[in-house]
């Protein structure tokens, strides 16, 4: 790596900052805001030692909570800081990681697919400048998140060292996954595939940490196989181990070096895995709008189905440990009292299914946005100049989106059900969990409908529907910590689905959600039928 390979990095950094002048500040501000509000709410909620002890004794050694929150370092002598770590650390790390994955892919592999990349490289831009610029911006974004959240958390009244360790740890996870995505961008053959690879690696690392932390067996090493595990291993507010942050930094540097190395071994616009010649004729089924839509989306559908199934199976297979813990730990009595008769296992399972549904919503949105990306890429123009009607064209992608959502959602139910059925030896759990997961479908359809509505009437704002997913996730995961008022929580369609299997089935809310989805979708289709095709 000589100096000349980096020429032009500064200009590219400015270009990225300009192109992402809306997107990036939204991510950064969203993450900072989430952390700041969480910090102050936790502070207000756990204002006496008794309440803090109450929290830690409920959480401690509860595998269901360990898997979603962390192992609870410092619970032996707890301060309010360890509660903050337990509530925010992993999710903030996941948020920073996803921000980096999207950012780096967008400005490296995905960008290469446009003709702009060639144009840029033909100007004075060094070979490593593109990757460097994307990584620098990712670093800047994560540093801003870390610095701001550290200041805000300290300002709310937490200790400085602990705040810095906590905020630094999740910021560094963001940096680490920026580097990981830079490598994925070299390996994958398309921007879409690189994005999938980066996100899948983040998800895998997230799950691996969870399995490691609840395992007492040989699998415990998994905690230390994952950047998320290292972030938790920093032990903020519990005798900080700063070397774990150094470990994250070293990992990021090593992976970045690998990305640089790989990038010189391939041509612009291609992946490491070279393309072979394809078929000269198209199979008949793929030359219809529906066939094409399926063909374009089947790779993503397969990836999501497998990823969601595996994740769900992991969450399902820890279900039995909850029963065991119930026998061992009388302190949980209070916690059960709040469940109004439902078994703690069922509450856990319904929580797991809901988390899975949020993940599935990620698939649904990326799938429904395909209409818009086909339009901006100019493919829609070719399609709609044939005897394909507008209804049929949007409808085909929508059919794939809805059918795909059912498949991925079913995979989540089957995964949780199968995992749980295997560990407790009760096959009846499989259909039970499958049914409970599919009950969440109308909530997903509402969000899909919202995307179609935007696509029909405000096409350039269609991507804003990711904001709806962010809102659903914040309400679902942070609703309690943030003490969000009821009407805000009611905005999330997931909140209206009865929490099966912990609660009984209710027809009315599900029917209302289904009807809302139909109305939103129909309104969006009418809008699209009337509007011009537009570019980006």
């Amino acid at each position: 790596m000589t100096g000349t390979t980096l020429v032009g990095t500064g200009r590219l950094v400015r270009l990225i900052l300009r192109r992402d002048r809306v997107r990036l500040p939204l991510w950064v501000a969203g993450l900072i805001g989430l952390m700041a509000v969480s910090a102050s709410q936790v502070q207000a909620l756990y204002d006496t030692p008794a309440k803090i002890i109450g929290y830690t004794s409920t959480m401690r050694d509860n595998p269901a909570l360990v898997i979603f929150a962390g192992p609870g370092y410092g619970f032996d002598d707890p301060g309010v800081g360890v509660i903050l770590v337990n509530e925010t650390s992993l999710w903030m790390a996941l948020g920073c990681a996803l921000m980096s994955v999207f950012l780096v892919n967008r400005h490296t592999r995905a960008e290469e697919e446009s003709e702009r990349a060639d144009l840029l490289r033909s100007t004075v831009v060094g070979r490593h400048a593109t990757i460097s610029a994307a990584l620098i911006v990712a670093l800047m974004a994560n540093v801003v998140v870390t610095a701001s959240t550290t200041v805000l958390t300290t300002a709310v009244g937490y200790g400085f060292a602990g705040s810095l360790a906590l905020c630094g740890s999740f910021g560094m996870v963001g940096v680490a996954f920026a580097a990981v995505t830079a490598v994925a961008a070299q390996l994958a053959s398309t921007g879409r595939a690189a994005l999938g690879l980066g996100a899948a690696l983040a998800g895998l690392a997230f799950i691996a940490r969870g399995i490691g932390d609840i395992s007492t067996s040989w699998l415990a090493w998994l905690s230390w196989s994952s950047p998320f595990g290292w972030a938790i291993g920093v032990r903020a507010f519990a005798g900080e181990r700063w070397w774990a942050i150094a470990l994250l930094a070293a990992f990021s540097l090593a992976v970045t070096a690998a990305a640089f190395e790989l990038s010189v071994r391939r041509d612009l616009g291609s992946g490491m895995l070279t393309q072979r010649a394809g078929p000269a004729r198209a199979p008949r089924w793929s030359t219809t709008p529906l066939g094409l839509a399926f063909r374009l989306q089947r790779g993503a559908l397969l990836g999501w189905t497998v990823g969601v199934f595996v994740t769900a199976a992991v969450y399902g297979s820890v279900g039995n440990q909850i029963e065991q813990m119930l026998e061992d730990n009388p302190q949980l009595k209070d916690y059960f009292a709040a469940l109004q008769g439902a078994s703690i296992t069922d509450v856990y399972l319904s929580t797991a299914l809901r988390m899975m549904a949020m993940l599935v919503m990620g698939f649904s949105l990326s799938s429904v946005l395909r209409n818009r990306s086909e339009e901006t890429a100019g493919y829609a123009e070719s399609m709609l100049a044939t005897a394909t009607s507008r209804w049929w064209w949007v409808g085909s992608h929508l059919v794939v989106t809805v059918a795909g959502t059912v498949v991925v959602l079913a995979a989540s139910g089957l995964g949780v059900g199968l995992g749980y059925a295997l560990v407790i030896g009760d096959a009846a759990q499989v259909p039970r969990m499958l049914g409970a997961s599919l009950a969440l479908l109308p909530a997903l359809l509402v969000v899909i409908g919202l995307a179609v509505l935007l696509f029909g009437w405000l096409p350039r704002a269609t991507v804003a529907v990711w904001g709806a997913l962010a809102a659903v996730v914040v309400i679902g995961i942070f609703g309690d910590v943030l003490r969000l008022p009821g009407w805000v929580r009611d905005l999330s369609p997931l909140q209206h689905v009865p929490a099966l299997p912990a609660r009984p089935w209710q027809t009315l809310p599900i029917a209302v959600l289904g009807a809302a989805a139909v109305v939103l979708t129909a309104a969006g289709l009418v809008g699209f039928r009337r509007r011009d095709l537009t570019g980006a």
Partner: protein
Amino acid sequence: MGADAAVRCEALIKTFGPTRALDGLDLDVRVGEVHGFLGPNGAGKTVTMRILLGLLRGDGGRATLLGGDPWADAVALHRRLAYVPGDTNLWPNLTGGEIIDLLGNLRGGLDETRRAELIDRFDLDPRKKARAYSKGNRQKVALVAALASRAELLILDEPTAGLDPLMEAVFQDCVADARAEGRTTLLSSHILAEVEKVCDRVTIIRKGRTVRSGSLEELRVLARTTISVQVAHDGMEIAGWPGVFDVRRDGVRVSFEVDQPAVGAVVERLAALGIVALESHPPTLEELFLRQYDAELAEAGVHQ
């Protein structure tokens, strides 16, 4: 008249916010002809074609395509036409052959023998993924898909952009074949030699308005013939004759331009002066075209 119009636009208007892309455009394409659609960058050619395809909705005026309404009857009309867009964007992970089949089937089937023949004539490798094609080869995929259809109307937006001269010649043959079969072609292009070769009639537009329309002969009448002559003596008095412009001395010769209707009278008067040598050439489309843009060039501050 209505029956033999494949495309008719009357006072078509299209605005994008403050931009008036089409400002009362007229276009008349007769059944069976090859119609050239010319105009400087940003004149509105692509916008017109996209309105004709129902991809955009006109804000005013009327457009008729094969006797139907391009917006309301889009699907039925699209069975009868094939379109090659200006920016050829192809699904990067499909092969050229797959894309030809896809677009062909979506248009209601393609002619198998013609498909094979065109792939051969254009020397296209149909097994390559679209992302691996060069620009010219991507263009060929779109062209083969359109030409292999049984469409009665071809709408081609700068179809030869990126083709090498050999392939350009193949394309011109294909358009001639299409005309021989009775198909209609609307062709936008910046390559005037090509338009001159293949088109029966042309429409020239500027800033969203039609400035000229007619057969090449008709348009030539509106333009000036260039004459370069050597006469017995000086000859500069020619400058005073009616219908004569731009008189220049060129060594022993005098060159000037003559309005088409004045050509006969000018030649007679030259004969009276005693012609030693004379050369004349009719206006090329290029000259015609440039003359139409004179006004625009002047506005842009270009002086000739």
